[in-house]
């Protein structure tokens, strides 16, 4: 058994966001793509939650569903996303009217988001400074000079040299790393309670990536905010995460603390994923133990457990019939028949 880790989450504070049975589907000409298909997840304040998954697993769509910024033809078809506001009120974001005041007040102010492509995610012909002050003017009762001052301070805080000059710069005048810093400044200028970062370092070099990750971690501690970081990079997860959720084909297949996930992964997918990556400095292996096959086409979801087509531990008659549910004690949960007591006996 794994060593007993102290219960890490302060049970007294409510989670920032509680996602229950969320389903976001895309209604395309060729059929319904179930990008998110029943996700349960809690995001806690002052903790970093990493969503780990390969491309197409729905991690990005899930995150966008929280802010209700999923583009058509995508739509939340089921489930709730409860945001527990600072004043104690609970708001269901999933059922809020699109474009409603309540939703817009939360966006940018309570929950902010940064994206993968720092170039295309910034307005191309609007000055950096203007894009930052915009959020301040929107959510804080500030005059323009005050907002400018605050924005420059924020630019300084995210490590942009000569912030007053950069305030007047256009995105294309900055390097990739600087752009991502500007994005972070923009997202954090209103001191949100939750920051969602969607692959924030994928487009960057490792050296820049290290700086950006450090920056996010630093600001997280300083502002005591929750961070939801979406990535496919196991290294990034191990470095920054406190909690981890692993997604596969629109579902969370395993959650746990970062130690639980990396030291004693339960789900065959998590285990296989950890096995299949080359590691720096590890003893050399002639071959990498790869996960066989490929992710099924989104229009042809396997019945039962979606991972069964690639799994080495399929229990016939069970895995292809019954969809496993997340279960487990405390924070470590896994959706796999191997770990459901009744099924283990079968196996």
């Amino acid at each position, binding site marked *: 058994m794994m060593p007993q880790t102290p219960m890490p989450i302060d049970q007294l504070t409510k989670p920032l966001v509680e996602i229950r049975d969320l389903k976001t589907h895309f209604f395309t000409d060729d059929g319904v793509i179930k990008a998110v298909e029943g996700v349960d997840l809690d995001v806690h304040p002052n903790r970093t939650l990493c969503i780990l998954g390969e491309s197409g697993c729905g991690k990005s769509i899930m995150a966008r569903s929280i802010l209700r910024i999923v583009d058509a033809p995508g739509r939340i078809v089921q489930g709730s996303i409860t945001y527990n506001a600072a004043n104690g009120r609970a708001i269901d974001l999933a059922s809020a009217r699109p474009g409603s005041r309540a939703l817009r007040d939360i966006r940018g102010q309570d929950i902010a988001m940064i994206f993968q492509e720092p170039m295309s995610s910034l307005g191309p012909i609007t000055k950096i400074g203007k894009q930052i002050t915009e959020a301040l003017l929107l959510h804080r009762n500030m005059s323009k000079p005050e907002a400018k001052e605050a924005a420059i301070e924020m630019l300084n805080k995210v490590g942009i040299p000569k912030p007053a000059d950069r305030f007047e710069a256009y995105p294309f005048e900055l390097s990739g790393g600087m752009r991502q810093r500007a994005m972070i400044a923009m997202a954090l200028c209103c001191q949100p309670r939750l920051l969602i970062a969607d692959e924030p370092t994928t487009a960057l070099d490792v050296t820049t990536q290290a700086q950006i990750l450090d920056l996010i971690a630093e600001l997280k501690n300083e502002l005591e905010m929750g961070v939801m970081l979406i990535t496919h990079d196991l290294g990034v997860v191990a470095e920054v995460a406190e909690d981890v959720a692993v997604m596969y084909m629109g579902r969370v297949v395993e959650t746990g603390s970062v130690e639980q996930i990396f030291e004693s992964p339960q789900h065959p997918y998590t285990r296989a994923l950890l096995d299949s990556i080359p590691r720096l*400095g590890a003893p050399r292996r002639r071959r990498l133990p790869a*996960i066989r096959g490929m992710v099924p086409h989104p229009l042809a979801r396997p019945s039962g457990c979606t991972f069964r087509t690639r799994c080495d531990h399929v229990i016939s008659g069970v895995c292809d019939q019954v969809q496993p549910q997340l279960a487990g004690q405390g924070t470590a949960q896994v959706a796999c028949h191997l770990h459901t007591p009744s099924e283990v006996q079968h196996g």
Partner: protein
Amino acid sequence: MADPVLKVRNLDMHFPIGGSFFGKQTDVVRAVDKISFDVFRGESFGIVGESGSGKTTLGRCIMRTLDPSAGSIKLTTKTRPEAELIGASRAEMTAIWRDMRMVFQDPQSSLNPRLRVLDLVGQALQKSEGLKGQALADRVGDLLEQVGLQRAFLMRYPNAFSGGQRQRLGIARALATKPEIVIADEAVSALDVSIQAQTLNLMQDLQEDYDLTYIFIAHDLAVVEHFCDRVAVMYLGQIVELADRDTLFRAPKHPYTKALLDAVPRPVPKARSAKRVAPIGKVSDRVSTGCKFAPRCPLAQDVCWSSEPPTLTLGSSQLKCHRPDAV
């Protein structure tokens, strides 16, 4: 090992900047700056570096899809005596391209969506061996099976494949002419983690079957460590360190290599040391004299700013640094 397939000497690739119809060319970018190295038969030679380091340009210069400004590239294959690639005619290059093939980064963009697999993979065979009809279909079918695809896919279009499958097509295509050397430019970086492992395994298996030499260009150090025998680290168009894998990854000698390795996130929780020595500044900081890495180097001294570092040989590694002892 002492049988070089490829000898690169003093290779330069300069791109003009600021030139226009009326304006005068103001400067050049030295994308590849006096690079020399050997690639030995049967090895996997890795080239790593950040974006803008010139690693892709270097690959394209070797393939001669770009025309290098100066230098020499000599290719020796089993069947052919040493041939100089710089200045070779199109016809000579066409012959050389049969022995030296390329796998591209983006399998989507390197496969023409309007051609069937048969024509895409078989194109080189059509040209080099004049194969047609059933003979061609048989050969391409064999190739598909070798890369783990089905023979039945012959008549499909590339759109009908997933990313991983497309990269297998790209590999099959590269192997069609039974090459001796394959240049793989970020061949697995666009792939998902699980598919990446499959592809790396496949490439290693094929290396044995075909007695291949790989030039493996990548930015992912962990993948390079796993895959390559010798590795060259590039920074702003120069090779700053070249060593065999174990030396390079266990005991990096160049401050840049060290910084790069430090920056890689390890998939082990809390493995990160309290504060790493992260290079400051950005890659495009350029200096006119001295070491190109000086502006970002934590160990830079006056000599680093004033004179270009010499290329040193320490044991089996090659190093371009003034202070190899300081790391």
